[in-house]
């Protein structure tokens, strides 16, 4: 049986204020972020502006600055902040016993 959550690894494998990627076969890559206060978020790894890989941005507070043109994206909602408009799909994520789990259904939806 396939669970609702995908176990993608240990929380410690994501550097603090860093990010790791999870490519999805036939779909869009997921970026998993860990913030300075140790919260974890997952987004499709694509900036709403021109598709920049958000996983490579600088993470500050609960935002990431896109590496291509420095849009600031809210990790919790995927929404561009300030003047910029656009939204990246978010993926529910949870931590269980130090493991990072992402929502399978949303991951598939992002892939569709």
């Amino acid at each position: 049986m396939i669970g609702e959550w995908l176990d993608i690894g240990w929380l410690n494998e994501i550097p603090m204020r860093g990010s790791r990627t999870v490519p999805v076969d036939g779909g869009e890559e997921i970026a998993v972020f860990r913030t300075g206060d140790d919260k974890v978020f997952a987004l499709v790894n694509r900036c709403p502006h021109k598709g920049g890989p958000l996983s490579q941005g600088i993470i500050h507070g609960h935002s990431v600055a896109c590496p291509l043109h420095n849009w600031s994206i809210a990790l919790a909602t995927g929404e561009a902040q300030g003047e910029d408009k656009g939204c990246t799909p978010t993926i529910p994520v949870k931590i269980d016993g130090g493991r990072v789990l992402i929502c399978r259904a949303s991951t598939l939806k992002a892939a569709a």
Partner: protein
Amino acid sequence: MDFQDYQSRDSAGDASERGSVDRREHLVVVGNGMAGCRAVEELLARDAGRYRVTIFGAEPHVNYNRIMLSPVLAGEKTFDEIVINGPDWYADNDITLVTDDPVTAIDRAARSVTSRSGRTMGYDRLLIATGSDPFIIPVPGKDLPGVISFRDMKDVDCMVAAAEAGGDAVVIGGGLLGLEAAHGLTLRGMKVTVLHIMPTLMERQLDEAAGWLLKTALEARGQTILTGADTAEIFGDGKVEGVRLKDGREIPASLVVMAVGIRPSVALAREAGLDVGRGIKVDDHMVTSDPAILAVGECVEHDGNVYGLVAPLWDMCRSLADGLVGKANPYRGSVTSTKLKVAGLDVFSAGDFSGTGGGCEDIVLRDASRGIYKRLILQDDRVVGAVLFGDTSDGSWYFDLLRKGENVADLRDLLIFGQAFASGGGAADPKAAVAALSDDAEICGCNGVSKGKVIACIEAGAGTLDAVRATCKASASCGSCTGLVESLLALTLGDDYSGERAVKTMCKCTSFGHDDVRKAIVERGFREMPQIMQELSWSTPDGCSSCRPALNYYLLCAWPGEYRDDQQSRFVNERLHANIQKDGTYSVVPRMWGGLTNPRELRAIADVVEKYNAPMVKVTGGQRLDIFGIRKEDLPAVWADLNAAGMVSGHAYGKALRTVKTCVGSEWCRFGTQDSTGLGVKLEKMSWGSWMPHKFKIAVSGCPRNCAEATIKDFGVVCVDSGYELSVGGNGGIKVRATDFLCKVATEQEALDYCAAYIQLYREEARYLERTAPWIERVGIDYVRARIVEDEVGREALRSRFLFSQSFSQNDPWSERAAGAEREQHAHMAQFKPIRQEEMA
């Protein structure tokens, strides 16, 4: 159930002492801890006569306050002082207490429990309140005598005895429990080392800023705190002798306290066949999957949550007791707050910082002089989280706002200053609120400036924010009262207040400019980023994408060889040592010293292009080759291949030395006056790898025809018959600027020395992201000449500081990565291959 039947199976017969037949329902409680007894108290308060109660406890004690074990360990309280319900309580309420005899089995069919001593007792209602078990990390040596956890009175007795015997202690776990254990042991005279696997202490409750402050405070009290410390083994011959970390370090210890976490104690329930997830599953009235059995406390899982603090237990016990007397009062989960019980160290945290619904907003107040850090997290005008360090007096107020979900839009601007302040004005308009403040209300906490003083100083002529800062120091340290001071300016000056700010701050996180921050780093010896943010009152918890890279550079420049570069504060190109392209792939530019290359290098590049299917390879404007379209996963392999041919990173991505452009010079050219190619190579060998405020380009031309375009470079050399003409501050790029002439030198060595000194001056004094051209426009070429040309001693000092710094930075980042450093930067965390058919079904 028939009472006679119950009597007959009650082998211990406690109830028979009662003489007459008791027809009341029998409630048996497993666990004489905080939740079990509180549940009984709540029940007694509602309907004292309704149930006959028996409590089984595994510990040999009456009901005591577990959270006060910390003060007992610290020697601040005795056991008697932390007893909640003494023997009288059990007697007065007709409760049978069985101590030191844990329940070992539940027979649900027969409705009875059996204890370790063999006692079997029937029940009508059973309440499981077994609490939690400490988690023991499965390392070798975990069972050695001298390794204990911190959960009950027995553990405290053990620690006190160990402390009396003297020696060193290691506490594994830098959470609430571990730190309280470490504190107690320190007070009892032990030398304590805390090992914490995460980068910051209490990371579940505190953010990095507060974690750093806490660490600093504990270190000041003599504890050794090792973060990022992963325990490999506890060693010792027959008893504990020490702990070995995965990195090989050994810490001697005669006592090891494991405080790494707790797990709900569910074994009994699971064996009885109750529904168990992480904890015993209960509904809103604490009823388990068996309607005759209830559960409460840390052992339960309610709505997917398990708790490790007492406040939720109180809520649970109320719902449970109401349920037992037939009144509906569903439990809906709890929001928790944490306080560290270490005397003189005020730490508070509440709520969740992740905020699920929408963009969260931080309000941060730092008062370095008083060691205070406060952070509130707001979402949709409601408080959703709070972290307080140093001054927790408003903790309960924030927690209250948080729990009630009150709209704080009206209080927004004053919220961080606390209840007294924020309720003082109470008006929606911050200006009105400020107007309503009394004259002695403190405006600037950092510098202790009252409203009266600020107004006096404005009336005396300080008409701008900067003037106020300069005269009475209000808002000069901490950005967060800037709004208040501006309100006062507007209030006092009315239309005369222009509202303009003169000093350009580094970014919105701080009220300081780049130069102030750099000066503070050097003069006050700041060595870590959280330290700068605290001492200089950053208004955000961990900076932003503007200030973090700048601070990282300033620290790197100030403390060469000492400061550990923070990868997460680097722009992607510097983090991945390649240039990101619009499609998310990377370009790779190996260094070609002075623009020179050879067949071996060219072949290696050609091979890489073919092997990795690079779609393009191009000659750059900087006299070298750029390979495009490489994926981040392939970068280490590409670098390994280029390294094998002797090539290193060209830093085409860095705020660093880029290229040294040369022309052919006297070696071949009929006009060449000096060996410009050779000098270019020497300059590049000297300066490659150095981090700078911005990118830095050098060129050497062999004669004034200047084929290497040396006069639009950051440092340019034009060779002439009698020596070398040095010029600085040139720029192609967005705004072309020709260099300023610096001086002429006679020898190649001098050209090198002047270059080194000049680079260091630029490194030490320019602002982050300021290229040499705007820098020189700002400080003037005369200043640069005075420092480099006229001050011989100063020049030599600058040069040697540069070379010293270079001794740490000339390691090829590519070969380090190719050898496996920072592997996670290049590898995916996991890969997901969905099974499509399953989805169709």
